[in-house]
């Protein structure tokens, strides 16, 4: 038996959190979003730290900057689209710089595993002149956060650590050979010329920022995270992030320039590497950013013309690219050592579905019945776009539904008094729905806003938010009152319903549609994964069942037709009773037994 030493198998996101703690960060904030969520959740468990979920990424970034100015090393975490929301403070914070180290860990999602787009956060870093690390695995996730916290103070700028789904959600080994750093005391000193970005001060800061950028170029040339591994001289591969591992897997004998610190790029190092190899291929996840910049140095490189531009990279795609490049440009051939088998096609798809007993299902079931136009939003409830509920018209970004409903209703108001609905989850409403509601109230809209209040941020794994009365550290706090908030923001009609009561839900929604102005309905039912209230399960009396399929129209995964019979899985059923309500033949009954 071999001896493993002091290695731990850590998820990338666990390693980011560990790096933050070891690097002396004692404050962390962010907003949940796959694939970034577990970073802050893990960070919150370390001794002596304070971790907070902010209502949205902008609030988080601002709080992080504030904590840094006060002298506490800080991390702020979000998914790629979160940086759209935080972009405003992020960009200008790079002008002001920091006091204690400030690191933004932002997780991109190439491949759309859990996101509405595939944007590449490295563009933002370039927009803001913010330096960037790109870890390839958990070990680097750890080490780069530590390094970034140190360098942030040294160069007086926030740092970006860019993750991707495969880095955040893969586990690999991490070895730590030093003790956690003790936070240093860095008292705040008032300095308006640095921290008050009025035009005259900001202009000077821009000049400093450019100077700092030159210094960072020097760092990049000698960063321990940028290194060359010599192999064959007929092909050199420049790679960053997890893509490096795909390239290594595909062709371990190539020459490699592995870039871990990727902005600003080490131009001299790249030039000298390029001069030693015949063909140069850039392998990077998402957009051709390194590739374009390297080409702008006047260096001839290949990249996305050989690699897919949509979706996530894979070792297979990289192997194919190397093989094609060599075939076209050289006589050396390269054999891919794996041969894919033929796939089995036309398998029934299994898309994610609303859970058995999810309150959202009932609400959408009624909305469908009312044939409402529904401007949607992002959360578990977006799953209602799929059949059989099929009751969502749009989904753009968090908070968009209310704004879209308002604009839609304004555009049709001369010819129609149809009340457009907007549905929004509780966490999403707090994140970016409130300003939309104020807009609707202020500009006298005729819309129906439904807040799907399941008392948690379910989709990302049940994080508390300001509507829940709990903090990330598990403490009790004030609880945002949606109904009162709606009233003071200009809603004309405000009601609360429990979507488990389908009859009442339909009645209230009809009333809310008929009311003039802004109607707000709070559909309140705790997420069944989080807090299940009903015991027992439902079952079908096969003699009474006419096989009409009405219950199947709920799209509940506990109900299925198999071998010509409709059955309810007692394992999956959570006894919400919606199926019994919709059954016109009284064929569905409850079994009280507690499992």
């Amino acid at each position, binding site marked *: 038996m071999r*001896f493993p030493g002091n290695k731990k*198998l850590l998820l990338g996101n666990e390693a980011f959190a560990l790096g933050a703690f070891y690097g002396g960060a004692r404050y962390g904030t962010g907003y949940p979003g*796959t694939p970034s969520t577990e970073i802050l959740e893990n960070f919150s468990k370390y001794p002596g730290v304070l971790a907070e979920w902010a209502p949205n990424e902008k609030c988080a970034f601002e709080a992080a900057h504030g904590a840094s100015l006060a002298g506490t090393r800080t991390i702020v975490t979000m998914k790629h689209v979160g940086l759209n929301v935080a972009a405003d403070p992020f960009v200008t914070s790079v002008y002001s710089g920091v006091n204690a180290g400030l690191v933004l860990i932002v997780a991109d999602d190439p491949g759309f*595993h859990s996101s509405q787009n595939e944007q590449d956060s490295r563009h933002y870093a370039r927009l803001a002149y913010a330096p960037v690390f790109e870890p390839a695995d958990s070990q680097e996730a750890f080490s780069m956060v530590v390094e970034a916290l140190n360098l942030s103070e040294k160069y007086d700028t926030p740092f970006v650590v860019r993750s991707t789904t495969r880095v955040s959600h893969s*586990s*690999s080994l991490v070895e730590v050979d030093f003790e956690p750093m003790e936070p240093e005391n860095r008292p705040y000193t008032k300095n308006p010329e640095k921290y008050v970005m009025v035009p005259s001060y900001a202009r000077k800061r821009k000049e400093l920022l450019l100077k700092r950028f030159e210094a960072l170029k020097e760092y990049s040339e000698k960063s321990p995270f940028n290194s060359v591994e010599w192999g064959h001289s007929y092909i050199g591969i420049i790679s960053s992030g997890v893509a490096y591992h795909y390239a290594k897997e595909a062709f371990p004998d190539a020459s490699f320039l592995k870039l871990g610190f990727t902005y600003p790029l080490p131009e001299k190092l790249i030039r000298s590497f390029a001069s030693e190899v015949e063909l140069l291929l850039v392998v990077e996840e998402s957009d051709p950013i390194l590739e374009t910049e390297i080409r702008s140095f006047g260096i001839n490189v290949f990249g996305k013309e050989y690699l897919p531009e949509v979706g996530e990279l894979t070792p297979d795609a990289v192997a194919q690219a190397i093989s094609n490049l060599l075939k076209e440009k050289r006589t050396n051939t390269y054999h891919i*050592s*794996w041969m*894919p088998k033929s796939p089995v096609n036309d398998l029934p798809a*299994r898309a994610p579905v609303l859970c058995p007993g999810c309150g959202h299902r009932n609400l959408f079931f009624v909305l469908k019945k009312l044939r409402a136009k529904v401007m949607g939003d992002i959360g578990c409830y977006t799953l209602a776009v799929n059949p059989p509920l099929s009751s969502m018209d749009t989904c753009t970004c968090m908070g968009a539904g209310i704004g879209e409903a308002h604009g839609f209703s304004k555009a049709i108001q001369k010819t129609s008094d149809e009340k457009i609905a907007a549905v929004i989850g509780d966490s999403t409403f707090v994140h970016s729905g409130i300003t939309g509601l104020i807009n609707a109230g202020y500009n006298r809209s005729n819309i129906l806003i439904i807040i799907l209040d399941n008392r948690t941020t379910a989709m990302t794994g049940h994080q508390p938010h300001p509507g829940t009365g709990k903090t990330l550290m598990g403490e009790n706090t004030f609880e945002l009152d949606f109904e009162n908030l709606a009233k003071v923001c200009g809603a004309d009609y405000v009601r609360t319903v429990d979507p488990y009561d389908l009859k009442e839900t339909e009645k209230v929604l009809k009333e809310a549609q008929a009311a003039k102005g802004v109607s707000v309905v709070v559909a309140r039912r705790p997420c069944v994964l989080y807090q299940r209230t009903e015991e027992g399960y439902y079952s079908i009396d096969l003699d009474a069942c006419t096989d009409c399929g009405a219950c199947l129209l709920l799209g509940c995964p506990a109900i299925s037709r198999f071998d010509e019979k409709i059955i309810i899985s007692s394992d999956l059923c959570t006894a919400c009773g919606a199926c019994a309500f919709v059954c016109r033949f009284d064929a569905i009954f409850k079994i009280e037994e507690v499992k």
Partner: protein
Amino acid sequence: MSATNIIIAGVGGQGNIAASKIIGEAALMLGYDVKITETHGMAQRGGSVHSMVRFGDKVFSPLIPKGACQYLLSLEILEGLRWVEYLKDGAFLIVSTEIRPPYSVSVGKDHYPQNIEEIYSKYGQLLMVPAKELASKAGSTRSANIVMLGCLAYLTKSINSEAWIESIKRRFYGKEKVIEINLNAFQLGYEFASNSDRGR
């Protein structure tokens, strides 16, 4: 040693992540380099999920290349079929007999392939496992994933049983009853695989 590559396919909520972590921790105890990649987020809501586990002297990519996977564990009868492209010649396919029809099948729009076992068999050596039944015997249907690990343990010789047992204990650390059930489930899976082997 070149890498051992394992794909675990299933439906969200079947214990996919726990199973991959148990393999990974056991491999780490034996001093191997380990990488695991898994599905989080949206897909966990009852959708198809998978994880990939790789261990060996040195592992680069967390994703397994297509055609390099030696062990496929399918926690639901259909799900493994989505991953056969990844299999290497002579792979082992460990497939649970549990059926969870997706919505399109429930409403009659789609069907499970008629001859699932036959299709799997084309890709390597197939072991069909009544994992849910065995788990129920062990004390909880939720341990079906561990039954499958028991089968894997029998078929792959690169991890010894002390490491498996220790890894299961660590995974459910502090929950004595859960540990007991899962060790039972592991044992039943192991025995099932070894009996089927002898039956061949």
